[in-house]
């Protein structure tokens, strides 16, 4: 049994002081129900997640107490992806016909301050100032630039593209283009990455209604099919965030593994994808994830990005809604935002940020602490 996405809803990302994270989640859920033409009482199950805005299952207080199983998912940056996999399997197994996936969040300003103990690391690691995701991303791209000749100008061009795409997306947080010069000369945060090369914690919500594929046209004239949803954790030897040490022999990270599994599940390859949403916690991540997901060889990003290939009109459009860089990262909602964007793209409803050429296949990828990755492939 295939699985279709028949309803999508979003609460704009950014800062909304007047609404709690939960209320933003309810807003997105109501839009998703409306989009599918169903009522909350028609929904048979839900999976959802929020890291900083309370338990996702309290959404039932806002939407109505109908007695459905609503399972909370907490898997860091892969929370949305993990919810989606769970819903995918619940429908594929034949247990349910229609359900909802919800993700919302509302974070404080400034960098995330992770607790070492929660990740099984000694307190000393945080005390000396190494419990910082930004350091990991900086050290990974520093090594990558050294090994594959990526320039600092290319780093800035990734941010420039993100803010251009954000300016075209009414739901994005950062909606003003910023020049390459301003990006490159903004405050250095973790060398070689400046302030405008990082995304920030933010707020937002996304909900999706999913159903069995043979029921899809009851709810939508433009159903989009979930051909693959995979999630992987790190293997021994991959270079990951929050690692006090690392093996001398390196292996591929969870992104590579999740991508391979997804292509195998969907029976398609990287060359078949028409639009890509790749985790861009900062610009280096987007660059490295292009190769880790199989869309180019390591080092080819320099020429591709300089030639504009990752822009909306390019050969390999990446983060067409502005990505994390322009939307910020409400962790519980971030992975589902990518799926929302790809559904818009495949329906041809992305407006100013629509990729040309009638896209058929679309790809999403998230990566996060402590070394996890989730991928989806959507087809219309």
């Amino acid at each position, binding site marked *: 049994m295939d699985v279709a996405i028949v309803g999508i809803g979003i609460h704009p990302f950014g800062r909304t002081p007047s609404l709690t994270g939960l209320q933003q989640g309810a807003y997105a859920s109501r839009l998703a129900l409306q989009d599918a033409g169903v009522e909350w009482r028609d929904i048979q199950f839900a999976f959802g997640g929020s890291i900083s805005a309370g338990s996702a299952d309290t959404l039932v207080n806002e939407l109505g107490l109908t007695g459905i199983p609503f399972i909370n998912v907490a898997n860091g940056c892969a929370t949305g992806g993990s919810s989606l996999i769970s819903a995918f399997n619940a429908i594929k197994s034949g247990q349910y016909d229609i359900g909802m996936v919800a993700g919302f969040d509302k974070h404080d300003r400034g960098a995330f301050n992770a607790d070492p103990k929660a990740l099984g690391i000694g307190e*000393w690691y945080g*005390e*000396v*100032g*190494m419990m910082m995701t930004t350091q990991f991303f900086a050290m*990974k791209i520093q090594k990558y630039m050294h090994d594959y000749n990526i320039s600092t100008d290319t780093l800035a061009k990734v941010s420039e593209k993100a803010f251009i795409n954000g300016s075209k997306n009414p739901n994005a947080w950062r909606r003003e283009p910023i020049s390459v010069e301003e990006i490159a000369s903004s405050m250095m*945060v*973790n060398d070689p990455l400046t302030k405008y090369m990082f995304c920030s914690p933010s707020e937002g919500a996304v909900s999706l209604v999913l159903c069995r594929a043979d029921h899809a046209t009851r709810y939508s004239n433009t159903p989009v099919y979930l051909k693959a949803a995979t999630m992987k954790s790190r293997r021994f030897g991959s270079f990951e965030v929050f690692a006090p040490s690392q093996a001398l022999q390196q292996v591929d990270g969870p992104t590579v593994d999740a991508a391979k599994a997804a292509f195998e599940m969907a029976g398609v390859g990287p060359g078949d994808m028409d639009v890509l949403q790749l985790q861009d916690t900062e610009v280096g991540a987007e660059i490295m994830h292009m190769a880790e997901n199989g869309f180019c060889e390591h080092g080819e990003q320099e020429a591709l990005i300089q030639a504009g290939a990752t822009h909306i009109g390019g050969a390999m459009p990446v983060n067409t809604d502005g990505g994390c860089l322009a939307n910020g990262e409400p962790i519980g909602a971030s992975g589902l935002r990518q799926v929302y964007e790809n559904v818009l793209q495949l329906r041809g409803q992305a407006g100013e940020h629509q990729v040309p050429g009638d896209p058929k296949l679309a790809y999403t990828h998230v990566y996060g602490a402590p070394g996890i990755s989730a991928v989806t492939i959507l087809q219309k």
Partner: protein
Amino acid sequence: MTKQVPIAEGLFTWPAERPALLASRCKNCGIASFPAAQSCMACSGQDVAVEELPGRGTLWTWTIQQFMPKTPYRSNETAETFKPYGVGYLELPGGVRVEGRLTENDPQKLHIGMEMDVVFAPFRTEENGDEVINFFFQPVA
């Protein structure tokens, strides 16, 4: 009298004439891990022995922390006295790549592949006067 205490027990030998970082090495697969663990992340083996790591290695990658981190960061600095610090992974031959703070914070003086020594020095002073010792990586003179 000032007492010097390690930032965590079991991270490195202290006090010692020549302090060294401590790793566990798996007797089954030979993989080393820092800090020392009770089981092996590579092969799931539980037969591990603690050993001292070499005191010199090469810088594998690095960055500079330009702003003062929030809690759980715990130094004696304030927003006014904070100085940017380097962080890097040092590849220790035959062992592992260990993440640590660098004594150097000038990006012009750091490059991948440079030799560095593991050194031990005070990181902060506790209210009772104890000096808390941490390990740092220092460019070879």
